[in-house]
């Protein structure tokens, strides 16, 4: 199975409510067999994951996801929703 290429874009992290880097590590640990995570500015991405420190969601300000499907995590508890979104992305792409 070809792994999906997911770009990761962080907000600046002025006062985050959780450890954003740990969130990405957790996702890599849980679903790293199906998804690879890259910096947001890489080519040929299948999806963009915004790691927002809070609900203000500043990461979106500096980046227009355009045609690439995207999902924002704004809370520590949203890792499950992120996995659901990624799994759906996998199904839609039909691998």
């Amino acid at each position: 199975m070809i792994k999906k290429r997911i770009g990761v874009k962080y907000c600046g992290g002025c006062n985050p409510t959780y450890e954003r880097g740990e969130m990405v590590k957790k996702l890599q640990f849980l679903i790293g067999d199906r998804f690879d995570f890259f910096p947001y500015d890489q080519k040929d991405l299948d999806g963009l994951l915004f790691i927002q420190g809070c609900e203000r969601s500043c990461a979106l300000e500096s980046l227009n996801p355009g045609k690439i499907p995207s999902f924002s995590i704004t809370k520590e508890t949203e890792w499950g929703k992120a996995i659901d979104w990624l799994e759906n992305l996998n199904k839609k792409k039909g691998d």
Partner: protein
Amino acid sequence: MKRIVTKEDYIKSLKDLHHRVYYNGKRVEDVTEHPAIRPHINSAALTYELALRPEHEDLMTATSHLTGRKINRFTHIHQSVNDLIKKVQMLRLIAHETGSCFQRCVGFDALNAVYMTTYDIDQKYKTDYFERFKKYLIYVQDSNVMLVGGMTDPKGDRSLSPSKQADPDLFTHVVERRSDGIIIRGAKAHMTGGVNSHEILIMPTQTMREEEKDYALSCAIPLNAPGVVLIFGRQTNEERKFEGGIDAGNPFGAVGGEALIIFDNVFVPWERVFLCGEYDMAGLLVERFATLHRQNYGGCKGGVSDILVGATALAAEYQGTANASHIKEKLAEMMHLAETIYSGSVACSAMGYKTPSGAYYPDPLLANTTKHNVTRHIYEISRLAHDIAGGIVATMPFQGDLESSEVGRYVKKYLAGVKGIPVEDRIKILRLIENMSGGTALVESMHGAGSPQTQKVMYGRLGNLEQKKRWAKRLVGIE
């Protein structure tokens, strides 16, 4: 200078600087190896390191409006209200990593203040300071050097103006004008990050009169230039940094590692001179630097306070008082005060505006209000930290006692708190509280970016009292 990118580049650049730094009467050959200075270097180094991390690049970097290149935000000229807000956010995030001052904001503010004011000087006097300064700015942005913002002169007898001082050097001034540049003499005091910066950007310390033209001076000087001498300031519990252990409290030191920087007949070429004699513009430059610097304090001190609140909450947990209602109430009060100062910094940024130069400037009244709140709230936050943590903050034995084969078991037995919490962890947190809440750290929150009275003076000028009186009279029908 080769572009400084990483923390390692920064430290190497300081090794190569060979500037004349003195500590306790002795010359320091390599500041990076000195135990009293290294914590402050490590703190400033984070301004380089964090800019390389994807989880912080949105705040730590910007795009130069002059070259279009990606630069460290500490060398950026604010191009929008959003830039002003991002500056404050950046300061809070770095403070979360250091729990201490990271020093680089002073040079950042000096760059912005000189940028916008040289434009105005040129408009009035048809000089070419702005073009000179833009060239210097590109050098700073491309090399990513760290600057000291040099404003505060020693001032001598405060009742006398610069030209009336018994010693004319108590205010930095021009002593000779030559075809290729100027010679200056004087000193700048309390220079944050002084010994671990590459250059100083000098500004006048106050409004100047016509007879003080020689004191109306702004210029940039490499800190290794002939005639520059730096004397590191002694801090509270200074010697604990030599031990480098638990008793030091915070591995990043306390506040910025301030220095007295002396200019003993220093030559400055004209291309690095940005104000020289236009005495009526000195006040504007001072006011702008002060505003830009006062804007910061709710950001960095807000972030530092976050650490102190966290440490205090842990101290309460470790000693079993966390569930007491008065402890919860006091922690809530600490958070209220921290967010209050942060709110001020965000507010003055949000209400910022464009200057004729194109650079953005925070609302000066709100920036001054923010800093004035910091002079009060940091003391109150620290008082509450002491209240919650207890007298043990001031009475703990040495780390050496904890590790002693003879008395270590007593320290572990009698400083134990809640079961399962290592005594060493409890001492670490209490030492951190001690480091962050007393002595040098408190005085810095009072006088850094200007003493409280300087903010009160600004209220008198910017507070619009006459309009307030008109509103009151109108409300009750007084003609």
